[in-house]
């Protein structure tokens, strides 16, 4: 019974490093079935929804009025799945954190990494990296398949801003992933975290429309989903921020959430 523990001369005792903490987070991420299901759902959303919308567009081309044809933009059609994918990525990002709080796992995590911040950094880096690789690949597939389905109405990666928009899908969803992890550490509760995230991403822009017209230009462009939209779009909506300014604002939201989460993680009892 005591043989495995009875090692008075203990083997080399390795210390905790940020890289090891990140490796631990990687094992945690890939050892949960819910991660695989949610990532699969986000891949299916980007590719499936994009291709489906292109298919519908192409089939209804002859019925489209002149105004509708004027608004038509082939890149956006093939990348439309991003709206659904952000739901999956956002939920998983919150769950990566709140799942530990609801089960008590966080105590094991923090006891093995008592400085705590490497846990937050590891989660953010690992989840963001996985999201970027998967979503960038999915965006390229969605674009290429979507344009093929659009046929003569489609475009190519050589078209102005097309390549940037495709890469932008990966960038946008990656920052949303980090934002979600940050909110998870702030709220620590799954339902609350998801409500907060999608309140900001989906509900706030709608509510903003109800503000006095003179306020709107000072608020609406800076909401995270509005600010981030430019990076995966070929055309920028009037009144919204330019591509990289907007993306910078989205990044600022994510960094702010992560910083607040970090401060709270250090301060609060686990």
């Amino acid at each position, binding site marked *: 019974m005591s043989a495995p*523990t009875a090692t008075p001369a203990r083997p080399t005792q390795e210390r905790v490093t940020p890289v090891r903490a990140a490796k631990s987070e990687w094992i945690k991420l890939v050892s*949960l079935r819910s991660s695989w299901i949610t990532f699969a759902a986000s891949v299916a959303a980007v590719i499936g929804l994009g291709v489906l919308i292109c298919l519908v567009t192409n089939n209804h081309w002859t019925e489209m009025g002149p105004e509708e044809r004027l608004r038509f933009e082939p890149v956006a059609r093939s990348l439309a799945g991003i709206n659904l994918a952000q739901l999956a990525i956002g939920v998983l990002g919150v769950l990566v954190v709140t799942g530990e709080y609801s*089960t008590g796992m966080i*105590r094991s995590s923090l006891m093995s990494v008592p400085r705590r911040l490497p846990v937050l950094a590891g989660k953010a880096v690992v989840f963001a990296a996985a999201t970027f690789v998967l979503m960038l690949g999915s965006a390229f597939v969605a674009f290429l398949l979507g344009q093929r389905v659009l046929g003569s109405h489609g475009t190519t990666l050589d078209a102005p801003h097309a390549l940037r928009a495709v890469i932008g899908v990966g960038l946008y969803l990656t920052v949303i992933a980090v934002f979600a992890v940050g909110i998870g550490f702030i709220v620590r509760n799954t339902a609350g975290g998801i409500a907060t995230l999608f309140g900001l991403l989906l509900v706030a822009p709608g509510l903003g429309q109800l503000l006095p017209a003179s306020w709107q230009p000072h608020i609406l462009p800076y909401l995270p989903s509005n600010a981030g939209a430019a990076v995966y779009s070929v055309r920028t909506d009037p009144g919204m921020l330019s591509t990289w300014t907007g993306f910078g604002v989205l990044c600022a939201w994510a960094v702010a959430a992560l910083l607040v989460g970090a401060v709270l993680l250090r301060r609060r009892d686990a």
Partner: protein
Amino acid sequence: MIEARGLTKSYGDKVAVDGLSFTVRPGIVTGFLGPNGAGKSTTMRMIMGLDRPSAGSVTVNGRQYADLAAPLHEVGALLEARAVHTSRSAYNHLRALAATHGIPRGRVDEVIDLVGLTDVAHKRAGGFSLGMGQRLGIATALLGDPPTVVLDEPVNGLDPEGIRWVRDLLKGLAAEGRTVFVSSHLMSEMALTAEHVIVVGRGRLIADTTVQEIIREASTNAVLVRSPDAAQLRTALVGPDVTVSSTEADVLTVTGLSAAQIGDTAQGLGIALHELTPQHASLEEAFMTMTRDDVEYHGHLAAEPTVLEGERA
């Protein structure tokens, strides 16, 4: 070696741990005993760096937990609440924790084998019974082969065979020279496992002593005497260091005299004795007596909730 100095934790105006100072030494099993709500779990959470003390400090091997470079190699812990993601397998749970310290997979297999979870290592931890969960917690505590082990109610939910296994394991760890700190609300369990006990009640230190000492003090040396001439015997026995109480007409409870002395006195007076029995309080009774004033929630106090403050020693 665990050292607490003036360790205090309050939540709002409620004090959960109140100025605890104690030292847990290597080489023996030290029990941490107290009724529910006495602050045992909170103290252990502060040892493990999960809760921040409101005042005072607690160190492991001379350093605060958060300052340990390789904590799993210094202290291993099983805390009362489960600390496992329910959807992850026991194996992956341990592998993820091992990765933070670069502990090889071989050690993960070793501790799984040690606690007897090999057959279910790849099953979801959420499906584990209470006892299996405790075993996984013990495996987690031993993962880094630490010289100090902190276990909160480790026998909770274990069957008799499992309880015996934990007892042997703890004694084995102590015999290897490790510091073993185990909480329980059962004095009888501690009497079988621990050599030294730290007793707390409502966050304060009540006793820091050996189990032997508690057993010695528990024996109140009272003698139960039954006699038809109880009243006469009583007068003969009472003295400066002797107290006699009586619950029935022909029954006396005598402290301060041995059964032999009482018997001799009775014979000298020609008083018949129908019973002469030395009384030994059980350990559990000794513990109840010790902590009677410090039990946070008395069953019968349910109707008057806040009479807790105002009797600080």
